[in-house]
């Protein structure tokens, strides 16, 4: 069954090169808890590419969350840091890769964004 989490991870694998991720290297394991079942994923960050594997190989950091939480997070309804502080999700190892993963998530739905100026000046050059 396709869940938002699954769709997001499939999308991530196909996303291709992400330039701002070039500064990050390492492996992050996702442990998504669904009742008695734990789904394991490994995200390998390398030179701006993210490889996603459905396995439990060695990792530099581990993010453990309820799948329901992750389902909400991947549609922009949850933020990573408040959830860590609330004790809803947990991180073992460094936070660097987890924060980068959180930056790959969409923003909250229905945002107004910066007001659009009426006569927006065109950038020169």
């Amino acid at each position, binding site marked *: 069954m396709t869940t938002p989490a699954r769709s997001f991870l499939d999308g991530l694998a196909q996303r291709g090169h992400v330039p701002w991720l070039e500064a990050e290297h390492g492996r992050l394991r996702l442990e998504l808890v669904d009742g008695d079942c734990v789904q394991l994923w490994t995200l390998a960050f390398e030179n701006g590419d993210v490889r996603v594997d459905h396995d439990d190989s060695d990792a530099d950091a581990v993010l453990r969350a309820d799948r329901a939480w992750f389902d909400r997070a991947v549609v922009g309804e949850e933020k990573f840091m408040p959830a860590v502080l609330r004790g809803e999700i947990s991180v073992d190892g*460094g936070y*660097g890769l987890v924060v980068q993963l959180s930056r790959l998530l969409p923003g*909250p739905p229905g*945002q107004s*964004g910066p007001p659009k100026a*009426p006569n*927006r000046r065109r950038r020169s050059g």
Partner: protein
Amino acid sequence: MNGRTVKLLDGNTFVVSDQSGDIEATPTDPTGLFAFDTRFLSTWVLTLDGTRLSPLSVDDLQYFQSRFFLVPGVATVYVDAKLSVVRQRSLRNGFVEDVAVANHSKDPVDLRVRVEAGSDFADLFDIKNSTPKRGTHLNQVEDGQLVLGYQREAFHRETVIRADQAAQIDEHGLTFQVHIEPQQRWTTQLSVTTTARRRGKRLPLVFGSRANRTSQDMEAELKQWHSQAPKLRSDWEPLKQIYERSLTDLAALRFSPEVAEADSMPAAGLPWFMSMFGRDAIVTSLQAIAFVPELTATTIRVLARWQGSVIDDFRDEDPGRILHEMRYGETAAFGEQPHSPYYGAADSTPLFVIMLDEYEQWSGDGALVRRFEHAARAALNWIDEYADLMGNGYISYQRRNEATGLENQCWKDSWDSICYRDGRLPGFPRATCELQSWAYSAKIRAARLAREFWNDPDYADRLEREAADLKVRFNRDFWIADRQYYALALAGPEGDQVDALSSNIGLLLWSGIVDEDKAAAVAGHLMSPELFSGWGVRTLATTEASYNPVGYHVGTVWPFDNAIIARGLRRYGFHKDAARIATGILDAAPYFDGRLPEAFAGYPREETRYPVQYPTACSPQAWSTSTPLSLLRTLLGLDPSGDHLVINPALPEHIGHIELLDIRGRWGHMDAYGRGRMPITAQRMQ
């Protein structure tokens, strides 16, 4: 808490107690043991047979360690205590306290030693805003330890208190029945640990590997910190004290946020801002770059890792924006405050680019510039695509989070800081003048990086064209010709000039955005009695309707502001004015034991004769701590040029001879020497 407080701090853990070492916090005062924006102890009182103790003296051994010498009862002129107590407190995932009770009499004594303990688990924002708690408190005695707890859903914080001597433990403290022979001592070690519970497990509430350092580790680290910094020799004695104080306070303010691993960056200030602030961390790192360059590298890395990636109105986040503030307490956890992180700053983003360039100029670390190319490009893109709210080519701000976001997203972030001469507050958006100065500098500096490191000369050309265009427009649109200074801001839908005379005009000089033919007028205003108090440049001129010598951003003098102004004055050749400002600020420091507070009052120097501290000023405050370092750099005229360090001193006479030895940088180690030749006598006190 009445009277003087004793403060210990290490990164974002700190204890504020009275002179006896006791803590009796009220809901609205920031005393107690704090970690991650949460108070873990609000009561901590030591008694002997029910009697409180009075201080004889307090030794501040280190920033993380204090020793209290105490006697029972109320201190009088004549103290004839048969008992004395020494408490030695050291920070360590909370703190460790060694208590020694000495019996000075000829007879044995039997005593009841009691430590009363409690915690309200207030979030710093609860204290600021006096809001009640929503969770439940639960204190329990378990396995020979007292656990003070607070829980709201899965948010679960606990303070664990243990002793290494047998104690009767109840839910409000620990009691020791003690027998001490004549001339003997009884000792115990109390440990207070700040923890969080996650999935049933109790874990220390820490990030990174700097946690769990012992006092010995911290002492060794502090020694190394001082030994790596340049050595200062000066004929002017106070300068050495100020210098050492600054280095130590900067060490104390270092903290490792979640993405910093073993490295550290400066937290902003005790007690309200012991967390990550983009603007404060960047300014502090830049001001300290000639002395402790590693702070800058970490600040770049951490802020890049948290760079905005989406549109989020609650957090005022946009792609490419650099964060303003991170908080770790309950209100951030439950979304009652937006600091997770909050992005409502309009200057952090261009300042980030400035910092990247400045760091490379000092360190020669081209790899870092390449590594963060995309972060810098995203920041520059934010300036053009997200920050130009008026469509007039200037960075402006207007919060989208109307409930808890910041109205003013420049460094003067209090609600009434941006005003017209007549005191009216302008509409939104607001484009303060110094934001344009940062944007100009960011583009000029990024052009160099694009050409030399990113292999993109077209981008470099474009940035330089945009910067040149910005300078022309800025000098036309912000200049108030009949007053001969730059408007504080353009504001409102039409971008009207906000005409107050403010210290902001001084921040323009550093970037070079000021036309040469306007610089003398700007310098003249800065040094006029309306702006210059004798100690420093006021945030707002005395002639303006909103001027208030104790108004947070409308009349006080901020040391860091003055440090940037002094650098700008030197850039435009006003060496003597720069030296006057440096002299005023450095003269103020000894009144605060060498530790410049966040701000002091704007009263004229000849009126008060000493600098009056702003009532609730933070101290130590990171960018005040780094101010003397920046002033030293300015006075010695230290600037990297290619692989060399240029030294061009312009020192006041009274400072005499200065030597700054072993300045680290891409040149290896360099020594700078200077001799004071400029008479700066006006208003100086001997």
